[in-house]
């Protein structure tokens, strides 16, 4: 007879796994309303700390070569593959789907990492351009990362929606502060454990679990967040975030389709460079 060793579901901030600064947790239940776990309930100060960590990691991550980012994203896929059993169990439990359906979701999520990994060093070739101009200059337009992105992944997907939201953000060289699905947060915590072991520098992805309606307004108003993926926000929260986000001109996007380079480009901005010919 052995006592169960159960996992403590913690936050992921700056490469570390702290509990919430507030000490709070909330209850997560399975599809049949049976108790499963008490993940941390992040406070606005955890969000602030996560943004600080993301800002700190931005310089290094955005200036890493696209090839290097690509390798790291592929490595995340490898690490998820090794943990796929754990993901399958969590998805089956949370969403109340069969193990076969859960396995399919995990495979799709892992494939999404590989797909975005491939995009890292191709996006600027595909979306950038050499512009014809009448003058003795080379003229290039290249997409560049915007900065710190707040991510609210789809609420109704335990893993796939999460990966489809994070991967394009970091593939483009941004850093992310993710507020996981309120109802299905466990896969996000397990994903953070995969991220922590996959050469991804600490702070590039920060994952908070908690009450979305409590955290979203603070994300919207935070002056050091440059963009928001509002896919998982309700209509009311989306509106609130757009209003407060206007203060520092946040790019706020909501996506219905997945796995499209548009998701990458939504969090990049174009820079045009004029370079004199002959110098």
């Amino acid at each position, binding site marked *: 007879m052995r006592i169960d060793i159960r996992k403590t579901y913690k936050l992921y901030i700056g490469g570390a796994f702290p509990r919430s600064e507030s000490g709070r947790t909330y209850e997560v239940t399975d599809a049949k309303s049976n108790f499963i776990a008490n993940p941390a309930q992040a406070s606005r100060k955890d969000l602030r700390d996560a943004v600080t960590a993301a*800002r700190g990691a931005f310089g290094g991550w955005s200036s890493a070569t696209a090839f290097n980012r690509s390798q790291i994203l592929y490595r995340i896929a490898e690490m998820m593959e090794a943990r796929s059993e754990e993901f399958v169990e969590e998805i089956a439990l949370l969403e109340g789907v069969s193990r076969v359906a859960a396995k399919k979701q995990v495979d799709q999520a892992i494939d999404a990492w590989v797909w975005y990994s491939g995009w890292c060093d191709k996006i600027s070739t595909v979306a950038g351009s050499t512009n014809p101009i009448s003058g003795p200059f080379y003229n290039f337009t290249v997409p560049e990362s915007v900065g710190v992105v707040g991510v609210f992944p789809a609420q109704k997907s335990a893993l796939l929606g999460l990966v489809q939201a994070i991967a394009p953000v970091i593939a483009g060289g941004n850093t992310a502060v993710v507020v996981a699905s309120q109802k299905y947060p466990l896969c996000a915590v397990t994903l953070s454990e995969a991220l922590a072991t996959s050469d991804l520098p600490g702070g590039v992805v920060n994952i908070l679990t908690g009450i979305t309606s409590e955290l979203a307004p*603070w994300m919207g108003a935070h002056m050091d*967040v440059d963009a928001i993926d509002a896919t998982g926000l309700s209509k009311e929260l989306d509106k609130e975030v757009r209003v*407060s986000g206007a203060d520092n001109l946040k790019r706020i996007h909501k996506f219905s389709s997945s796995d499209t380079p548009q998701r990458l480009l939504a969090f990049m901005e174009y820079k045009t460079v004029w370079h004199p010919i002959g110098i």
Partner: protein
Amino acid sequence: MLTKIGTFTRTIHGNPFSPLTFFRYNSIVQLVDGTDTSIRRFLKQLPGVDQVGAESRAAMLATRSIKTTSKKWAIDCAISMIDLTTLEGSDTDGKVRALCTKAVHPDPTDPSVPSVGAICVYNDKVATARKHLDAIGGQSIPVAAVSTAFPSGRASLEVKKQDTLDALNNGATEIDMVIDRGAFLSGDLVKVFSEIVYIKELCADRAHLKVILETGELVTLDNVRRASHLAMAAGADFIKTSTGKISPAATAPVVLVMLEAVRDWYAMTGIRIGVKPAGGIRTTKDAIKQLVLVRETAGEEWLTPKLFRIGASALLNDLLMQRMKLRNGNYAGPNYVTLD
């Protein structure tokens, strides 16, 4: 109980030595006159520091929660106590002028933000700082110069004196000198004491003197207490933890012991000596912890820029961001404060 009963000036080895301090200890009149015996006799009376106790007391005070109106007051108080510092080999006149502008109006978007306590620079930048401050309405902000072969203190007495004179002649009204830690650790207390006395004499009434103990090199809290009392007996107006060039710098237990030292000194002599933690204080939380330490150790009288300063550069931006948060209700970002 030590009681100060007077000071006097006299000459030792042909050099003027002042002030020299008498103490009454259990009705025996004592004199710290710069001789080895007198210094040792004086320092020997100091009780040892309970290190575990000091650490736990400092940790306990650090848990105190300061919110809303108290936090607003604490932020403004901390801003007014900052010695805004740039001590880099790469300092330029331009950088010093930018820092002075920031010292006068830390947040250009909000005139209600108080000016900082002082500007702290190397002695060759003192004139630039003084001139620029006077030109932009910062006449009341003093310029502090680090002196005596800062940060190591490894130079001859003549060089140290000249270093200090340069700063004074350029308009410094505060001198941050370093003690000779090597001499202190090897027991040559006379050297440490006499250097402070000489520099104090140069400062006289032109500048007030902050003595940097560089506690990160003093190893024990007992040494911190001894060095604090030694500096005060030699005439320091302020005792300062660190140069900011080595780590650890202003840790909470060290600041606690130094605050206890100035409190005890006040009880002995009726003179209030200032304290300046410097190095490693980067966030608003750190700064507020320091203020709590001051209030609970030395007392409320020390919560003024005349008696408490915080040596920092990055701290000011964090204080300003926290202040914006209190004012606007949302978290500010580093894009809204200056890059230093």
